[in-house]
Each structure stands twice: as C-alpha cells, then as structure tokens.
C-alpha cells in the first residue's frame, strides 16, 4: 500500500473492500490512512469507487482520483460483478487488486485466484482432493476483454515497476486496472522473511509475468533472463509441499505455455 500511495500522492479517495488490508489498517479508533478512505462492504469496492468518481465529477472537484483497492477475493470472485460494471461503464477509477491468492483474511480459504495445485483450507490435501484442481482465474484478460484502456500486472518484489505502472494507470481518465502479486507468509506457508524472495521467484520462473496491456497492446515489462524451473518456486512454499514430481511437471507445462504466449523463453 505504501507503493500505491507513493505513486498516487494525497489527491486520492480510496474505496477499499473488506479484507486483510482493510482490517489491519482501520480498527476503530485507529487508522493508518492519511488520505480520504472508505470501506463499505466486501464485494463493492469498484461500485463504491465509481460512486466516488461520480460524486467528485458532480461536485466539480478536479484533480482528485478515485481509487478502488481489493484483495483477490474482493476482485475476482465476490467483487467481479461490480468491477465488470465499473469497466463497462468506463468510470474514472483506478482499481488495484492485491493478490495473495486466497481468502487470507478469513483464514486461507481458496479464491478463484488461488493457483493450480495449491493447498488451502478449502482445497486441502486428502485422499480424494489434492489441492486446487482448477487453474487461476485470469483477471487481466477478463478486464482486457472489457476494453479497459490500461491493465498491468506487478509484483511487490519489483516496486519501481509497480510504481511506474500505477502512475501510468492513474493518469488515464477512465477505468484502469493494476494487479499486484503479494505473497502471504502464513497463507503460502513460508517464513515471513522470505516474502520478497518468493515474490521474485514467481517472476523469475515465469509463473507471474510482469506486463501491461496498453490500449489493447501487450507489452512485457520484464523478461527473466534465464527462466528458472518452476520447482524452485514451488519448493519454497509449504502450500505446494504435497506435489509429486508428476504434478510439478504438469505445472511446469502450464507455465511454459503461458510464457510462450508472452514471448518469454
């Protein structure tokens, strides 16, 4: 969030969905926010932010940007309808999704953004079920299909890339979307000090690709010089501990195909 506010400055109104960030930053009477901020519910960050944008416009308050922030749950699942409406209407809102790949705030239940094969409390490892059996929902592609003028992926391990993309997105008048990958140490079963390292490995293995879709044109902003095997990334996380060599190979195939699509070797 530091990076978000560093990039955007103080002339913003933030509408945030219920989630990790919302809960830890605003237990009454404490607030960590020094910009105007509102939380109304879980599934409506985009709708609230759209209303903020409309209100600012109606009151002729120029130079203030409406920003919506939600986790992967409040974006990809329960929040998807509101986000879809916001983009379709062309509302002047920058939507930032911080993706820790599960409903972490309520205790690590799976979301549509949980990657294939991951353990979560609702996709546990047992005799009949072995982690999430569905691929990760491709949010950037969904937003691109709506025709949003600017979409970008980012990672907390590449803060300057993230900040640049946020600045670019905020400057555009219309619906823009930035999706930042953010590991959760209890949720991914990693040591807290490895948080940035794991995020970096996601990018270096091609599992998380840093790119932008600028008016429909895809531009990869970082190509890992020598793409590392996915096992390096998976083996660092307890949530993938159960994977067999076969399962890892399958995930490697999925990553290879994704990288091919982006022109990453």
């Amino acid at each position: 969030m530091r990076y978000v506010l560093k990039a955007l400055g103080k002339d913003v109104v933030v509408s945030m969905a219920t989630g990790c960030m919302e809960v830890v930053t605003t237990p009454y009477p404490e607030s960590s926010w020094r910009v105007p901020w509102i939380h109304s519910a879980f599934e409506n960050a985009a709708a609230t932010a759209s209303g903020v944008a409309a209100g600012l416009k109606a009151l002729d308050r120029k130079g203030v940007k409406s920003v919506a922030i939600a986790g992967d749950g409040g974006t990809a699942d329960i929040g998807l309808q509101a986000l879809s409406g916001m983009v379709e209407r062309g509302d002047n809102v920058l939507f930032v999704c911080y993706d820790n790949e599960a409903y972490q705030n309520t205790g690590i239940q799976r979301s549509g953004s949980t990657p294939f094969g991951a353990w979560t409390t609702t996709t546990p490892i047992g005799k009949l079920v072995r982690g999430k059996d569905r691929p990760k929902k491709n949010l950037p592609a969904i937003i691109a299909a709506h025709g949003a003028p600017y979409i970008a992926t980012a990672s907390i391990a590449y803060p300057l890339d993230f900040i640049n993309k946020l600045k670019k997105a905020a400057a555009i008048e219309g619906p823009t979307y930035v999706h930042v990958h953010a590991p959760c140490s209890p949720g991914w079963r990693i040591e807290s000090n490895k948080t940035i390292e794991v995020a970096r490995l996601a990018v270096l293995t091609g599992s998380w690709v840093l790119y932008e879709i600028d008016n429909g044109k895809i531009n990869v902003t970082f190509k890992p010089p020598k793409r590392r095997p996915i096992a390096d990334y998976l083996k660092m996380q307890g949530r993938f501990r159960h994977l067999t060599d076969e399962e890892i190979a399958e995930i490697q195939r999925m990553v290879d195909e994704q990288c091919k699509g982006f022109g990453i070797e």
Partner: protein
Amino acid sequence: MRQVLTGNEAASIGAKLARVNVIAAYPITPQTAVVEKLSEYVANGELNAEYMRVESEHSALSACIGASAVGARTFTATSSQGLMLMSEMLFVVSGLRLPIVIANANRALSAPLNIWCDQQDSFAVRDSGCVQVYCENNQEIIDSIIQAYRVAEELLLPVMVCYDGYILSHTAEPVEVPDQAEVDKFLPPYKHPHPLEPEKPVTMGPVGVPEYYEEFRSMQQQAMLAAKHKLLEVDRDWGKRFGRRYGLFERYKSDDADILLLTAGSLSSSAKELIDRYRKRGEKVGLVKVRAYRPFPGEELVDALSHAKAVAVMEKDISIGWAGALFTDLSSAFVDVKKGPLIIDFICGLGGRDVSPLQIREALRAAAKAAETGEVKKPVRWLGLREKVVGLGM
C-alpha cells in the same frame, strides 16, 4: 403547478426538484419509469446530475455511498428483489450515517415470482436503520421525496420513501408540483460534516471493535428516535410553505370511534371511503393511517388508539410464522399499557391481490364482534384467501 402524474413520475420530479447530484439506479418493475424519467431529465439538461447506469441494485446503493461520502446529494429507487439485493448495503448506509434517499415501489417478494403490489419488501428491511415513510397518494410521494432530503441530511440517516407498486406507481392522479424556487428555499444544499476530501482526510467504515460497536448502534438509535421530531419539524415547515401537512400518522374520523382500521399506503384511501359510508349510516368507525413507520411512533399511536374498543390492522405483509409487521410493532407499543383496544391483524392484498370493499367490511365486522364479545379468538387472519384453492390445507 398542477399536473397529472403517475407515482413514478412524481418520484422522479421530486428527485429533480431536490437537485440531486448523483443518481445510481437499476431498473425493476414497477419502478422502471423512475429510472427512465430521470435518465431523460439528465440527457436533456433539465437535471444537472451524474447518472450512473449501474449493473445491479447492490452496486446502485454502493455507488450512492461513494458519492454521498464525498458530499454529493444522491438518489436511488428500487423495489422487491432489488431491495433485497440492496439490503446488505441498507444497513451499511445507516451505520455509515449517510443521508441517501431511496424510493421504493412496494412489490411482493419472490418466490413465487410476483411483480404486483404488496408491502413485504420494505417491511422486510425495517431493521435496517432507514427512516421509512409510506405514501397514500402521488401528492404525498412528491412531497415526501423532497422532505426526505431535509430529514436525511439534518440527521445523517437514510430515508426510504415507500409507495404502492402499480396502484400508485402506474396510476395517474392530479398532483400539485412544488415550484423549484420554493423548494430551493426549503431545501438548502447538502453539507456533510466531514466528507471524503484530500484537504481533510478521514477514514469511513473502520472495524467497529466490540469496545465501541454498541455505542455506535446506540448513537444510530438516538438519531432515529430524533427523526420523529425532525419529521414533524420538516412537516410543519412544508405545511407553511406549501400548505400540505401529513404528520407521523393521520387520524381520520378516529377520535370518537369505537372501531378503528389501521393501514399504511394506498389502502388507506380505499379504507377512508368505506369509513365515510359507515359514518353516513351513523356508525362510529375511523381510520388511523400510518405514514412514518420507522421510527415507529409507538407512544403517539397508543395515544391515538387507546380509546377504541377494537383495532383492525390491515397490512400487505406477513412474517411467516407469526404476524404482519404493523400488528407486531403496534402490539408491542401497547404491551405495558393498562387499558388498550383489542387488536386484530388482517393479512391482505398479498402479491397484488385486490383488497375489495367486501374485505374491508369483513375486517370492520370482525373488529366490531371483538369489541362486542371482549375477546379475539384468532388474532391473525387472512382476507381474500381462497381456501378451496389451497386444497390440502397444508
């Protein structure tokens, strides 16, 4: 200026006269004309507002929250299923203390699917912390929408203006449309005490931890109770400027009546006609028409009804497993009163079923019987129910 307007038109013009800044609404029968009319006004420049074509009622109210929080005057309208979808946010609006005005065209709830009038939808959300006002006719609709902003903004509470779907929403009646200049004098611009603005950043909607939550709820309750006085204050001012007053409820030939009907909404008009006919025959019957339902004017109703021998509540809703909302709330107002009337609940008009004069007569007759015998054998009864159709009587 006098115009012939449907209820939906009256609601739209009310919002226009109130100079709303942001409208976010989703169409649903029988409210659709409100959404369409307002769209027209904005499109041709008659109303200078941002019109949001939201993708659901939940998003409609969420967008109103965002807009209201930055200091814009907002409006939305809905009905039935839309109100239900919006209901999560109704509680939030009240908790956040934002002065949003919601017009609700009363319509029955699914399942089974039904687009016609009953009052279940708004009664179902009576706990939400919205001020609730029920309109008898289209004049009352236009007046109530404008008044609602004064009440909402001075108390920081949402106000829901309810009117019967189809019976009022689609029926045209002569309405005195208030003059814009007069409305401007009545309704000053909206000023939130601490809106969302970068110059003075505030945090809205934090986690209300157990140490504080109960206190915040109590503050809401105080505000809602204060709404009783506010509604009357605004009503008096409206009366001075426009010559029309409504009060928290209306006493129609009730002061000397032994038998009373209690209604809310358009049914009050039909009931008044019957009261007049009975009075011509010399029978002492009367009607109390409830306008403000939340805050519930319990003490005031006890005052207005105590003298009667029996009260027949006629309402178009039922809390399955017990009774209708009006009856339940009214009975609780009498719980510690030593001498009060016998009260009978009549569930009628569900799903758009017509409430005929015969049904109203039945209610009056039953109340008279109760007054005579001094007892009520069945406190909750249904009017117009076709027992044969129900079959097995399950």
